[in-house]
């Protein structure tokens, strides 16, 4: 839900080079059924944490929908799943 500007600051600060997309109207978040209603700092709708690994055809090959948002997947878990992609 962060704006493009907020995401730009975050990725610049952290040195990330991957694509950051902003979903201020929760379009993709809604399409993926990931809306966490009223959970934002001002009571706005935000995304629940979720990770999807897609193969080159856009098919989901690995997914993580955490049950506790303090718990996120470790980079090693995602790398392992990515290595299984052909």
């Amino acid at each position, binding site marked *: 839900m962060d704006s493009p500007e907020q995401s730009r600051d975050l990725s610049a600060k952290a040195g990330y080079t991957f694509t950051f997309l902003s979903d201020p109207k929760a379009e993709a978040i809604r399409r993926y059924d990931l809306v966490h209603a009223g959970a934002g700092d001002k009571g706005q709708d935000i995304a629940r944490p979720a990770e999807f690994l897609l193969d080159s055809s856009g*098919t*989901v090959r690995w997914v993580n929908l955490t049950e506790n948002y303090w718990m996120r997947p470790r980079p090693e878990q995602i790398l392992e799943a990515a290595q299984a992609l052909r």
Partner: protein
Amino acid sequence: MTIQRFNWQIWTGFLLTLAAGFSYPLVFVRWPITRGFPWANLLLFGIAAALLLVGVRRAFAPERRRRSKIAASILATLSVAMIGVFIFAAFIMSRWLPASEGAPQIAQRAPDFTLADTSGRMVSLSELLSTPIKGTAPKGVLLIFYRGYW
């Protein structure tokens, strides 16, 4: 009147409780190993609780003054409240998440979308799946949805 020794256990226990709570957002959130399951904070809370218990028992010894007992009661109550808030945030509130039954599952096609990147350019999922990286077609795409405000 006897001179009473400083009840260091209750004060150390109280300060350690504060440190245990605030060190999560300020320090331990930085590393995956201490961020997911907050064992470092729980360990600090455990040490703090032991000190508080010793401090309260000491304060309630018959020869201690009333003032000492009141101070110990207040500090112990505040500490227990802090520990309660932390446990509530880490293990109860953090599980209040939507069911997301309609989320794409393994072997399903991920729905396409088009959103603005950090420079305001519109980017679609299908574009990310097909745009070559350093001359080779991508093996796939990792989509990460996060709560924001980082």
